């Protein structure tokens, strides 16, 4: 009897010890905006890696970055925040940090030596007042120069342009051959990308940073910047009449069918080429800028972790953070997303030709700069977008545009 009771007690103890570890699967609800086919395949890589590490992934996908971020903010305020939420490398979550609504990820940052591993523009936005608040997942380059091989051949262009003059010459040749030289979608964010490309390629890294990062009024009012604005406006003479309002994929479609020659768009454009079964180096080409020292415009996706004291949620957040920065996850995600991993210590040979060019460019720290939203608040970014789109679409003089641009960045 005594022994039976002991055995029963031992069994109960064993059961009690076993149950918590069964329930210990970390549940993480993640808000993101990856909803298309290719993006879905990519985010599934993170979900699978997380499940493999013992977690449970609850997917809350909301298309449209601003919608997803609005929902994240409203849920944090409403009292049922997600475990993690996607943001861009930008100042969008600065206010959230200042209100104390995010948990920091200093532990992971220390373990993975982010201070030395990550590019400076990214550290700029995820490290606030000495603490890390976001986990970077990938790097996109905003201003790749794509071109259709068929269009180039028809126009008699034999070499990739290596500077702004050669680019204009190539565009002239395309126009003469009856091809739409610049396939462009007339939406204000696309116009800003075009402008950033010209500012970085023609103005150079120093002008780019003094205008966008330092908001130096003298640099904005300089002749060099005026030259950039004029080159930007000159680009407009190379787009077709149907460009206003066009979606970026429809512009890529013009390259795919050979109707358009060049498009300046982020590396997510690769997805459209792949869907049309075109291959880099065969039907289309990609350049991360004009010339071997062109600045590489970095933006990326990060995850933030809303503040919670619930110990299970905190454990889930830490697990998710470590899964996201793991080299295997980064590689698997970027392969399907079209971006490149944040870490440089991954096997680049698995990525496609354009991504490999990107990784090579990234290795040169001198080429790394951030996109406009890395340096400007959302409001400032919006203000210069308004100026640029008005300048592009109306008969505004370059002097007025320069003045408005300076006013937009004054405070």
């Amino acid at each position, binding site marked *: 009897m005594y022994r039976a009771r002991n055995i029963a007690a031992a069994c109960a103890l064993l059961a009690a010890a076993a149950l918590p570890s069964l329930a210990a699967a970390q549940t993480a609800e993640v808000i993101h905006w990856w909803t298309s086919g290719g993006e879905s395949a990519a985010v599934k890589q993170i979900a699978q890696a997380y499940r493999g590490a013992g977690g449970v992934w609850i997917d809350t996908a909301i298309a449209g970055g601003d919608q997803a971020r609005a929902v994240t903010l409203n849920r944090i305020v409403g009292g049922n925040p997600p475990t993690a939420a996607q943001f861009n490398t930008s100042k969008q979550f600065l206010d959230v940090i200042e209100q104390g609504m995010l948990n920091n990820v200093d532990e992971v940052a220390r373990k993975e030596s982010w201070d030395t591993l990550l590019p400076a523009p990214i550290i700029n936005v995820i490290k606030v007042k000495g603490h890390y608040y976001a986990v970077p997942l990938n790097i996109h380059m905003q201003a790749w120069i794509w071109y259709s091989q068929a269009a180039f051949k028809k126009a008699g262009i034999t070499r990739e342009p290596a500077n702004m003059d050669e680019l204009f010459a190539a565009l002239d040749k395309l126009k003469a051959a009856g091809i739409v030289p610049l396939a462009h979608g007339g939406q204000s964010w696309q116009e800003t990308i075009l402008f950033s490309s010209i500012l970085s390629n023609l103005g150079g890294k120093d002008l780019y940073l003094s205008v966008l990062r330092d908001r130096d009024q003298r640099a904005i009012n300089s002749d060099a910047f005026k030259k950039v604005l004029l080159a930007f406006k000159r680009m407009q003479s190379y787009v077709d009449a149907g460009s*206003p309002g066009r979606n970026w994929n429809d512009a890529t479609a013009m390259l795919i069918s050979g109707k358009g020659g060049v498009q300046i768009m982020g590396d997510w454009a690769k997805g459209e080429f792949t869907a049309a079964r075109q291959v880099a180096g065969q039907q289309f080409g990609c350049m991360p800028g004009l010339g071997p020292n062109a600045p590489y415009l970095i933006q990326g996706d990060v995850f933030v972790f809303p503040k919670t004291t619930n110990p299970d949620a905190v454990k889930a957040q830490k697990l998710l953070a470590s899964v996201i920065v793991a080299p295997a996850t980064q590689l698997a995600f970027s392969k399907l997303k079209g971006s490149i991993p944040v870490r440089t210590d991954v096997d680049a040979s698995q990525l496609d030709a354009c991504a490999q060019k990107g990784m090579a460019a990234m290795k040169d720290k001198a080429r790394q700069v951030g996109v406009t939203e890395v340096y400007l608040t959302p409001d400032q970014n919006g203000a210069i977008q308004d100026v640029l789109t008005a300048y592009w679409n109306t008969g505004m003089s370059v002097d007025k545009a320069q003045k408005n641009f300076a006013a937009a960045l004054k405070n």
Partner: protein
Amino acid sequence: MLARRFRTLTPFAALLPMALTVIVAYIGTALWTLRVSLTSSRTFASDNFVGLAQYERLFDNERWMLSLHNLAIYGLLFVVACIVIGFLLAVFIDQNVTGEGVLRTVFLYPYAMSFVATGLVWQWMLTPGNGIEQAVRLLGFPNFQFDWIIDQDMAIYTVVIATVWQASGLVMAMLLAGLRGIDPEIWKAARLDGIPAWRVYSSIVLPMLGPTLATVFLLLSTAVIKLYDAVVAMTQGGPGTASEVPAKFIMDHLFLRSNIGLASAGAIVLLVPVLALLAPYAYARSRKGQA
């Protein structure tokens, strides 16, 4: 005695949900928005009061001023077109036509569809080079031009076309319900008197449709002030900022630009003309009710 008191209290009790909604949800929100518009709030409401600075910034903003201008033009055209087309459709359908059910669904289906996709279709159709302009040229009119949507001055008219397409069906449905509520004796009597059909409509029917027309007008006006989805789907406020409207300006600053202070100022400014129009109207009606 208690029963009589209970009976006169019942209407008040029945209206209690409405009173609560108005006071807590609508007035409460309006007051909150007013308060935020007087601060320098960015993503979240802050307590940093800056007086009328947001309003100054608002009226200094070219995009906002253009959006008000666009709203005035759009509003006038949209309301008039919807009422005229809706009335004509309702009258013609009411003439004992065969296939009324099908016709009614044909005119109403645009209202059922999410404008995100239909707006894109309208953008495709109105873009030069691929849409209607191209089709008409292929039909044999090589100089036909229809590029309003990329024109700074004409872009807002394309939004009129697409939204009238979407809303006329509902106006038709409401006016049809109103027409069907009219006593058939009136038609008989008018026919006996030998009054021509169009006279019957203009002198007898239209006045009787007064309340229905008032409803339609108010409904269309709310749609005008809140115009957002159509602009985003068709032109994104472009080309440039040519087809910008106030609701889109407010939305952009609310979510995209994390500037709820400026957005709230815009919302209050949008509300002012509405209150200015409705307040004397409501006051007059309540006086009439007393008398």
